[in-house]
């Protein structure tokens, strides 16, 4: 029994070592996206939760809003954009002049996941979008 535990511990150590090596390899090949997000002290949920579950919150909120007319702010896409738009670009998908990436687009490109929201939704906060619309001829 003791021997089995020791073996398991060794296996775990080897696996962890391999993971570190792999992770550092990825770090070297693909730089982590740099964001430039000025607003807000903290997000509507904690960061770890949002990293894994933001898409679930958005899909849930989208159906509640479109189908039932519920327009709460916390989990709405427009609210995400209001805080997470870049300081200079005022966008969550545009790349900034300093090389910073849009908050949404940068991370989605990093993990290789498609980002369809902004095919239709505004990627700029309300105020900026309204200004752009008024400039349009």
């Amino acid at each position, binding site marked *: 029994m003791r021997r089995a535990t020791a073996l398991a511990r060794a296996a775990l150590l080897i696996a962890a070592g391999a993971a570190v090596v792999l992770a550092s390899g990825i770090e070297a090949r693909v730089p982590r996206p740099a964001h430039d997000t000025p607003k807000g002290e903290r997000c509507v949920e904690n960061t770890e939760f949002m990293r894994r579950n933001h898409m679930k919150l958005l899909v849930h909120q989208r159906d509640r809003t479109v189908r039932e007319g519920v327009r709460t702010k916390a989990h709405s896409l427009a609210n995400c954009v209001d805080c997470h738009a870049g300081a200079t670009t005022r966008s969550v998908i545009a790349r900034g002049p300093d090389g910073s990436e849009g908050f949404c687009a940068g991370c989605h490109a990093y993990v290789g996941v498609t980002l369809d929201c902004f095919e239709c*939704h505004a990627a700029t906060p309300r105020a900026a979008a309204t200004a752009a619309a008024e400039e349009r001829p």
Partner: protein
Amino acid sequence: MTDRRDDVDAGRRQFVGWGVAMAGATLAPGVMLFDLAHGRAPEAPAPRGVRWGMLVDATRCAPDCNACIVACAKEHGLPDGKRSTDAQWIRKVELKDLRSGRALGAPVMCQHCAKPPCVDVCPTGASFKRADGIVLVDRHTCIGCRYCMLACPYQARSFVHEPVVNPQPDVPRGKGCVESCTLCVHRIDRDRAPACVEACAAAGHRALVFGDLNDPGSEIAKRVASYATAPLRPGLGLDPGVRYHGI
């Protein structure tokens, strides 16, 4: 609507026209054109008992005015309508009685039917009617088949052919989906009247009245109860939420 120009109709139109002129003169000035004292909380869903509707008073609609169309385009970030493929949520239809020469125009948009054919035919469930009677397209499920456009007897729906630039935050739109008048659902949910209604009042015509048809105390319900109004193509039995006076 524009094709019915036979003699029987001409006489009828003339008669209706006189009635309309009298009714128009007796309308009280300074009345509220919409009342939205519902005060729904953001977390509350659209209420089931409400039936949002609009009354178009064709006798007050000025022939050279397109304030409602301009306001709609600005509110929703629609293109200017110069291209034949541009989406059109509201349009003005001109009627002319050939015998008498009497002409009038009225805006036509999605009529927000109680029994909407677009919802019946939609293969994905993207076309739907909200609890408060507003007919919408859920673009997340719309596959752009355009079956609803064929089914709509009012030709109220448009297909987005071109890529959309700078969509409004409250009005997401994209190429490949069908869309139509939403009765400014994003405004209604925040207790504001549709953009076209506000623009018409600002232009001084007050030809559009918006409100809850089910609330007997609302301006629209009082008007519908007090003078002759009719939906477009009533024979279809679709029970539209948009009603017309003076056509």
